[in-house]
């Protein structure tokens, strides 16, 4: 019997190694796998390359990982936020390398990695600083930049429900990068609010098929923040 669920979140991250590349889902705090990141912080691995839309905000999630000094490089589209002070400080101190990628190129490059493409000509960034030195081509009168896939050793993502085969469904805009990161990483860890019995997820509505997910960890749903309504 195949059971991808892990009762122990520490065991789920136990093989993440020094120097690993790690995709982390989430857009802002929506879909940020805080508990998996906390478990990763509890392990003493560093020199990590983080691929995520943001470079952390506030004190939890990617920000906590950066604060703990475990990150040597960030590949993201939007590092600078009003509360990205942990990234800002490490970056200004020269302790973190930044590869800035337009958000659509980030999504497309992650998807390309999952789909096995060698490279893609993308329309975004042509003629800008972020395409400097990159190969370009005019196709049918439109200009494109050649971009390469972004894969990773691990992906840490957050979904709503999962089953023991790794099938996942998400909640609202917390879906964001989860499905494509799951496809692009060698090993994908999903934290979910609930592990449901096999067959409980309608096969028509599974968003991430289990083939893309290696480990599923149930975490208690966070208590709704004061003043917030439902947060399933």
């Amino acid at each position, binding site marked *: 019997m195949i059971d991808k669920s892990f009762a122990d979140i520490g065991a789920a991250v136990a093989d993440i190694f020094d120097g690993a590349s790690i995709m982390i889902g989430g857009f802002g705090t929506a*879909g940020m796998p805080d508990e998996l990141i906390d478990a990763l912080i509890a392990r003493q691995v560093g020199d990590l390359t983080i691929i995520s839309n943001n470079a952390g905000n506030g004190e939890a999630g990617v920000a906590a990982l950066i604060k703990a000094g475990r990150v040597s490089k960030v590949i993201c589209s*939007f590092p600078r936020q009003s509360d990205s002070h942990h990234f800002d400080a490490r970056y200004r101190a020269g302790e973190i390398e930044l590869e800035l990628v337009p958000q659509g190129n980030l999504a497309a490059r992650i998807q390309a990695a999952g789909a096995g493409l060698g490279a893609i000509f993308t329309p975004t960034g042509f003629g800008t*600083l*972020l395409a400097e030195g990159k190969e370009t081509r005019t196709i049918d009168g439109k200009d494109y930049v050649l971009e390469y896939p972004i894969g990773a050793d691990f992906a840490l993502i957050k979904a709503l429900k999962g089953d023991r085969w790794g099938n996942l469904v998400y909640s*609202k*805009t917390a*879906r964001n990068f989860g499905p494509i990161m799951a496809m692009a990483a060698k090993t994908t860890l999903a934290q979910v609010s609930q592990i449901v019995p096999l067959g409980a997820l309608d096969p028509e509505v599974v968003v991430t098929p289990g083939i893309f997910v290696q480990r599923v960890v149930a975490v208690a749903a966070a208590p709704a923040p004061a003043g917030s309504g439902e947060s399933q």
Partner: protein
Amino acid sequence: MNRLNREQMAARVARDIPEGAYVNLGIGLPTRVADFLPGDREIFLQSENGLLGMGPAPAPGEEDPELINAGKQPVTLLAGGCYFHHADSFAMMRGGHLDICVLGAFQVSTHGDLANWHTGEPGAIPAVGGAMDLAIGAKRTLVMMELLTKQGQSKLVEQCTYPLTGLRCVLRVYTDLAVFDLGADGARVVEMVDGLTIDDLSRLTGLPLARADQAQAI
């Protein structure tokens, strides 16, 4: 001279968004356009973090941390809206499926180059987000901005001096003083506020400006 305030600018942009349009409103000032879309017009707002059919802000106490817009503010979803992942969301934007995208800008050139992501200041931490994708993807990319900086310099320019977001992508600029159509031939004034002349605008912007055939008051 009736310089438009920000609400009036947002209302002016909203007037040009037809029923049925698929629209992305950029972070900041463009977000306000939503407040001026008439309730009897069905318009589809997309947010690049994965939703289409975005509704207004939730009532206090009804916020859901997993239902936010690209500016990370709590929003709602209309009946008929839906969620999707980031690659599909940017396929909407980059694949030419959005009718209109409204963006803010540091500078726009008269032939439509856009600079809105980076001041280029040394030491500034760059952040681009979806700006470059939005600039080049929609069928019509519109900019709304005040025409002049606080120091009185025109943000409509012959050549952008800030780092570019996209080349020749902006079709129209809505400002507090005038509306401009842009293109290979340069900027044409479509509308001006009362009491302003083309000469005034040319002086303020330092640009040769033509008047569109159908130019009128805002």
